[in-house]
Structures are given as C-alpha cells and as structure tokens.
C-alpha cells in the first residue's frame, strides 16, 4: 500500500518521525481520498480542508522543532458531528441545529488538539445518534463503502465509512446502543465502546446520558488503544467521568489468549443471528480455543430483555435531553402565535420522524401513572442485566458474540419498520446497559463481500484485557481486504 491514506496511525506515525512523510502529505492524501469518495458515500457533513491543512502545517513545524505530542501528532482524524467544535458548525444531523456553531470545544476535541492531531471534518450520523443505519440524517444518508447500495450501520455511520474509505486515518464516534461497534462491523473497521465514564461526555450532544460513550474507529486494534489513551481520563466538566490513572491499554496487547477464559454468550448465538455471520463468528471461537484460550458457553438469559429495557431508558432520557431544542436561544425557530406554539412548531419542523418517535415514547414512559410500569421496570431489568454480566465475569475474562446479527443491509430495507431496525442493535445493547467496554473487530466477509464483526466484551475498566483479546482476534483473522471505495481503481473522480 503506497497511498498514505491507507496507513494505520502507528505506521503513519513512524513515517512522520522518520521524515519519510509529513503531516501535510498525509492530510492531502486523506483529503484527496475524500474528494474521490464523498460523492458516492456522504460520510462527511463538514469537510474542514482549510483548517486541516493549517493544523497539518503546524503539526509538521512542531515536530521539526522537537515538540512531539505523541502518537496522534499530525494524524488526520474525523469527528462524529454530535461533538461540539468551537467555530465549526455542529448539527448532530438535525435540521433543528442547522447553522449552529458551538462557542466551545468538547473535551475530546481539546484532548485531540492537545495531542497534535489534525481534524479533517465532521461526519454524518443518524439524527441525534438515533438509528442503526445513518439513514435518519436530515442531510441525507451515508452509504457503505463496501457496497453503496447498503447502509454503513449507525448511528456513527459517517465515521465508520470515512475510516473504511481512508478519508480519515481514524475517527471518533459515540455509542449509546451500539452506534460505534455496529457500524464498525458493517464497514469492516475496528470500533470500541469504552467503559461508561472513561471518556468525558462534555461537549457530546446528549442522546441518552446514562448510556452515551465516545470511542474510537480505527483500522487496527492497536490504533484504537492509542486513540483511546489520548481521549480517556477524568474531566472536571463531567460528573460521571471516572477518577484515577488511565492504564496503558497496550500493556498486554501482544500477550495472546493462552490461558484466558472466554465466554460465548449463548443467547446471541442462535437462529436470530444470520447463518453466515454465525458460522464466521463460531470459527473465530474455535480459533481462539486453538490459540490456547478456554472457550466456554455462558448463558445470560436477561440479554433477551435488553432491547426492550433500552428502548424505554434511552427514549426517556432523550425526551429530557432534547427538550432544550425549543427555538428560544439557538438553532431553528419556526413561527408561532404564542411562545408555546413557536416551541411546538420549531420542534415539529426541526426534528425528524425517528427523533419525534423516541421523544414521544420517552415522554410516555415517564408520565404519571406509567412511570413504574415502563421506566421503573426498565431500570429493574437494567439492574438484572448488570448483575448477570457481573456474575458471568466471575467465571470468564471476556465475553464474545457477533457485533451485528447481519452484515450491511440495503438502503431503505428497514426504514419503514422501526422494530426491525431496532433489532440491529440486539448484540450491542446489553453492555451499554451494564456500562462495560466492548470492541468490534472485522474477521471476514460474507458471500456478498460484506464485512463481519466480532465483538469482545470485558468487565468495567477491563480495556487492557479487551484489547489483548481483540488483538489476538485481529491476528487470527488477518483481515486485509479493503473496501472497494478505498481503492483508486474503482473510484472514478
């Protein structure tokens, strides 16, 4: 691979320091890849070419002056457009925030800047991160670079597609019910949802506060660990952020799986999983056992209720989180005879159908007389799931499952059937409810040449062990295929 846009962070970093490559070269290669692919994909809502070039130039000058900010120095990275960037439009793919320019940076943005990285642009998502296909964007869907008739997954579909295509070396997404891991699986890249509270949510436009977590998209497990190290750590601006030292997530990266106990989640291994995905995932279980892991089946019966609990808790929280979009102080304002009518008209016009559906669901679930049967019950189920996962981790080091029950589906296939769309997150939702970390690693292609993701989950703050197993999965899978849109032969300018 000669094009710098196809490098991993680690490889690009080595070339930057050997002088073989500059950050400007790297950034130009990434922007060129975006120029070739964007008309097919629409991974980006905002491509900040000027800003990226300036930052790349500054990064080169700093490095030349001996000011090396570490592994992300000079690396072009994309951000999901639900993270606030000072001076750069941030919409969360909603009409209601069209033209809104935040006056402040999200903590992850400040940290990436401090680490010397180059912000390429803001990527597309399902509006307010609500969706599993990136079709719910007010600014048009993103397509899957492996097959542009299919979805990239969601809600961080833009970030996943950009990394798969090479229009960024890495990206950040947010994962509330699988919104990093599921699109990572569908786009054939690595995606990680860290432990809840490990990465500050300050500046992340909230969908469901108790579930949202920012994490990396990269083309290797090691790169994800590197990126996570840069953004993790306590933040005084986020009361739910975890205190304490951030470990070196790469400490055990190449220690293999010999002697580790790996639990296969029984409830995510059945006929609800597409046969090709099941076969591929099952082969990986066997390969890990061959590599010396003790692989056993673990039953987590409460998993079955995860989806239902999630679709009460997340909408309930979003019904409050999205109340601030009322036309009074920022974003869209529609006409109304009274303040209340103005607010109602703004929200009716500014929110898309899926967002409205979830606000209504959540408002209902919290209403007097219904709270206990819906929201209260969902919280009890959440507690039960937490307990079952914690009990499972008494016996195993990590849990594994498919990331997505299917590979990428066709654009429009599920847009008329919300329940079918919600089901796309069945494998990822449980650990949003528990708060535990999980990673998706590409392990192969199905018969339609669409990527399959393998999910590795670990107990809270068990990232080091999770990366260790993920690295072993990556080594075994040796997944070197690239999305057709990432290769210059296929792309016509």
């Amino acid at each position, binding site marked *: 691979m000669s094009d710098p846009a196809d490098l991993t962070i680690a490889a690009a970093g080595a070339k930057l320091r050997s002088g073989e490559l500059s950050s400007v070269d790297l950034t130009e290669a990434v922007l060129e890849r975006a120029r070739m692919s964007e008309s097919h994909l629409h991974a980006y809502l905002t491509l900040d070419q000027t800003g990226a070039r300036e930052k790349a130039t500054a990064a080169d000058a700093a490095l030349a002056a001996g000011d090396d900010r570490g592994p992300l120095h000079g690396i072009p990275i994309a951000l999901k457009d639900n993270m606030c960037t000072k001076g750069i439009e941030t919409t969360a793919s909603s009409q209601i925030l069209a033209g809104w320019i935040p006056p402040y940076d999200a903590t992850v943005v400040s940290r990436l800047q401090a680490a010397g990285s180059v912000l390429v642009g803001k990527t597309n998502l399902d509006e307010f991160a609500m969706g599993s296909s990136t079709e719910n964007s007010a600014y048009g869907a993103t397509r899957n670079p492996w097959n542009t008739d299919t979805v990239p997954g969601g809600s961080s579909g833009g970030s996943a597609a950009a990394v798969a295509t090479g229009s960024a070396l890495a990206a950040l997404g947010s994962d509330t019910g699988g919104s990093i891991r599921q699109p990572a699986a569908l786009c054939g890249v690595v995606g990680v949802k860290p432990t809840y509270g490990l990465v500050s949510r300050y500046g992340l*436009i909230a969908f469901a506060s108790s579930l949202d977590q920012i994490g990396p998209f990269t083309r290797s497990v090691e790169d994800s660990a590197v990126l996570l190290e840069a953004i993790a750590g306590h933040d005084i601006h986020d009361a739910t952020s975890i205190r304490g030292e951030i470990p070196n997530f790469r400490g055990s990266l190449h220690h293999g799986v010999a002697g580790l106990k790996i639990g296969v989640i029984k409830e995510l291994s059945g006929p609800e999983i597409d046969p090709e995905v099941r076969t591929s995932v099952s082969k990986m279980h066997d390969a890990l056992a061959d590599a010396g892991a003790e692989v056993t089946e673990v039953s987590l019966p409460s998993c079955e209720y995860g989806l239902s609990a999630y679709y009460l808790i997340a909408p309930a929280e979003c019904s*409050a989180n999205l109340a601030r979009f009322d036309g009074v102080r920022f974003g869209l304002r529609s006409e109304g005879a*009274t303040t209340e009518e103005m607010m109602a008209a703004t929200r009716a016009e500014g929110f898309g159908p899926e967002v409205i559906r979830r606000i209504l669901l959540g408002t209902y679930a919290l209403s007097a007389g219904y709270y206990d049967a819906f929201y209260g019950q969902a919280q009890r189920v959440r507690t039960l799931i937490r307990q079952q996962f914690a009990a499972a981790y008494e016996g195993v080091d990590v849990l594994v499952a498919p990331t997505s029950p299917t590979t990428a589906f066709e654009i429009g296939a599920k847009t008329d059937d919300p329940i079918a769309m919600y089901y796309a997150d069945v494998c990822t939702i449980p650990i949003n409810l528990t708060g535990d970390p999980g990673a998706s690693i590409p392990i192969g292609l199905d018969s339609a040449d669409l990527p399959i993701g393998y999910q590795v989950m670990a107990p809270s703050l068990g990232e080091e062990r999770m990366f260790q197993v993920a690295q072993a999965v990556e080594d075994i899978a040796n997944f070197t295929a690239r999305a057709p849109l990432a290769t210059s032969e296929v792309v016509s300018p």
Partner: protein
Amino acid sequence: MTDYEAVIGIETHVELMTDSKMFCGCPVKFGEPPNTTTCPVCLGLPGALPVPNSEAIEGILQIGTALGCQVADTSFFHRKNYFYPDLPKNYQISQYDVPICHDGEIQVEVDGEDTKIGITRVHMEEDTGKSIHVGGGGRIHDAEYSLLDFNRSGVPLVEIVTEPDIRSAEQARAYGAELQRIVRTLGVSDARLEEGSMRFDANVSIRPAGAAELGTRAEVKNVNSLRSLQRAVAFEIHRQIELVESGGVVVQETRHWNEDSGKTTSMRSKEESEDYRYFQEPDLVPIEVSAAWRDAVREALPELPAARRARYQGLGVDARVAAVLVGSEDAIGDLFEGAMNAGGDGRLIGNWLSGEAVAWSRAEEVAIGDTPLVPAHLVELAEMVGDSTLSASAAKQVLAGVLAGEGTPGEVAESRDLIQISDSSVIEAEVDAVLAGHADAVASIQAGDNKPFGFLVGQVMRATGGKADPKQVSDLIRAKTGG
C-alpha cells in the same frame, strides 16, 4: 355558623450566595449586565454537563442542620421537566424522592404562644433565568415581546418545605421571619424578599375546626415581603371561608397575590397543571454526605436566633425585647452584642434599643445602623444611670441626642443640661419652696388624702428642670408632710 380552622404550609426558596453557580463555574453576582455571567452549562447549550458545587451542598447542609433536620447519607438529583423560556434546558435539576435534608422543625412565637412548625424537607435545586415581559399585562401571554436574562440561571437554590402545621396568617409571618433570621445568621444568603433571594409560596386550606381531614388547598405565589405573606394568607383564608359559606367549593389551583389590590387571583387550576415526569438525573452521581462532614457542619454552626434570644433573657432582657434585638435589623443586635461584650447593663440597654432607639429610627426615618451610635455610648449611658448622674427619663433624651449626632452621652447630657442635681440641700430648698406655695395640698395630705402627693413631686421636678432625683424628691416630701 361553622368555625373554621386554617391549615397552612409554606415552601420557601432561598438563593445561596456561593462564589459560583450550582453546576458551573460562573460567578453568583447580582446587578451585572444581562447575560454576562453565563457559560454553555447555565445556558443549557447542547453537549454541556452539570458538575455540582460543593460550597452549595455545604450551604444546604448548614440550613438543614440549623433546622434540626436529618441529613441523608445518599440523596439524588432529579430532572423536573417543563417547558418555559427562562429554563434553558427545559428541565430543572432538582431533588425528588430523596432530598438531602428532611424532618426538622422551627419554633415560632405569636402573642406569647409557642408553636412548632415541622420541616418536611430541605432540598437543592438550580434557579431559572429571569423573564421580562414587555407590553401587555406583564405576563408572557399578552406581552409584545419578552427579554431573557440568564445571569440567575443555575444559581444554587434551596427549597424548604414545611408540614401543614401553620394555623394563622400571623404564624405564617412569624415562620417566614424566623427562617429569614436563621438563613441570615448562617450567612449563606442575604435572604432579601424584595430582591427575590428569598421567596415564599403558601399552601392555604380551611376545614371545620376540629376536623381531621385536610381541605383542598390553593397555592399562593408572588409574595414579596413578610407583610405580604401575612396579608396574602389572611386574604386567602378569608376568601375560602366566604366561598364555602356561600355554598362554593375550593378548587386546587395556583393563585397570584397582587400587592396593590390586596387580593389573590387564579393562575392555573389543577387540570392545567403539569406532569413534571421526574426521573433521576443521569448526568450526576448521588450526593454522598459522610458522617464526618455532617458533624463538621453541626459543630461549625453559629449561635442561632433562638439560642441568642435565650442568652439575652439570661442577661435580664425581657422576652419581647430579646425578640426585637434578634430581629431582622442586624444593627440593633450588633449594638447590643457590643455593649454586652463591654460589660453594659443588659436590661437597660435592651430596653433602650428595642424601645427608644427603634421609635426614634421610625420617627426620623433613619436606620439605626446609619447613626453615630456605638456600643460604648450605650455602656456609658447605662453607667450614668447607674451612678445617678442621669435620671431614667433624662437618659432617654440623651440617647435621642446621641442618635441625632449631638455627641457622646456625656456631651449630650452636658449640652442639654440633663445631669441630675447631686447636692441634696439644693433639692431640699426647692421642696420647701413648693410646699410653701401649695399649703392646701400639704393640708390634704396631712388630713390623710394622698392624692396631691404626685402633684407636689411633679412641681419639684418641674422647678428643677427634671434634674432632681424623683425618688429623693418623694422621700423629702413624704418626710415633710407625713404623706
């Protein structure tokens, strides 16, 4: 006709004067230009997150502890959801089922009768911004346009809720006044009603005297002084009795007190009231208060008004006077404290401050704190009475002179010529002169009719310009007339 009993509970909001706001680093300052003490957090911008201010938690713990409350080891923040333009997130971070403090009490006194008012809960929340509705009737519905100032948004707010233990408008006022004194003593808020840093909502209902069940209540809002609290509650009790007596039914509603008309009017009924859809605030972790923190707050509490009144009574001060000294005007209490520390006579000085000084201040419309009066003056004055340099009545005149800026008590006594005549031969000469001039009166007394006695004393006092010791004069007249 039925006898009715009023049942009243009061919700009080107190803004804490912390350095920074409840959930962000913006300063808590008043009178700044609109929208200048704001940030993404208190403006509720997308992505912003709240972080609790431990100084505010300390403040509410002080209030709760002063009210004798239990402090919860673990309590929670909830979101209270409602749409209003001055509420930036369209939910208020508040507390719901587990408040930080609960089950306390305040003792209030009305006409010599003590009543315990139970405190149900004391919880922490954030203030809203301020709306200014321009045009129309000053309300959002008919305004031409509205202006929003978010400087107040996110200021720490403590809500104190009583049990329905209050039975009269006078008690309601006494409760409000005592709560204000406690909050000011703690120094956590200036608790100014007219500026809104302390605000009352009164829940008022009536029931036949002796009934066990509570009547339907109306919530009275917009009460901006202790006087209007009393007036509003009195009006509302009266309104409900009239309504029921004329065959009507009290409906559960929110009513607006209008200071000018002296009436409450309906704002919204229960049917229109909102479902706040409370749920635990997922952006915040539970508030944990350790036993050590709780104890430290308790030990650091200043002397509270009730204890201070008791101490003053121990110094010989009358209960009614003690209540005035520990009243809402700090200057009087400070003068008294200062005079006591300098060894002054508590009973005398207490009476002067609560009596003459307050009366002078009202008549002259000058706050006592704005006069030259200092504790040393009071001590000096008491000593002058003690050693008979001044008569009690002359001392009051001297005090007025000191308040008016005429000088120290010694200077005023001198310049107003009020120093008692100490030479007894001078007084005796005056007595003799008066007796000689009123032979009839002397004769009456000698005949056993004591009525003119006071008249004779008065004549001597007049002749001496009030500077004779009245007791000495009485003794001399008695000796000379046999009266």
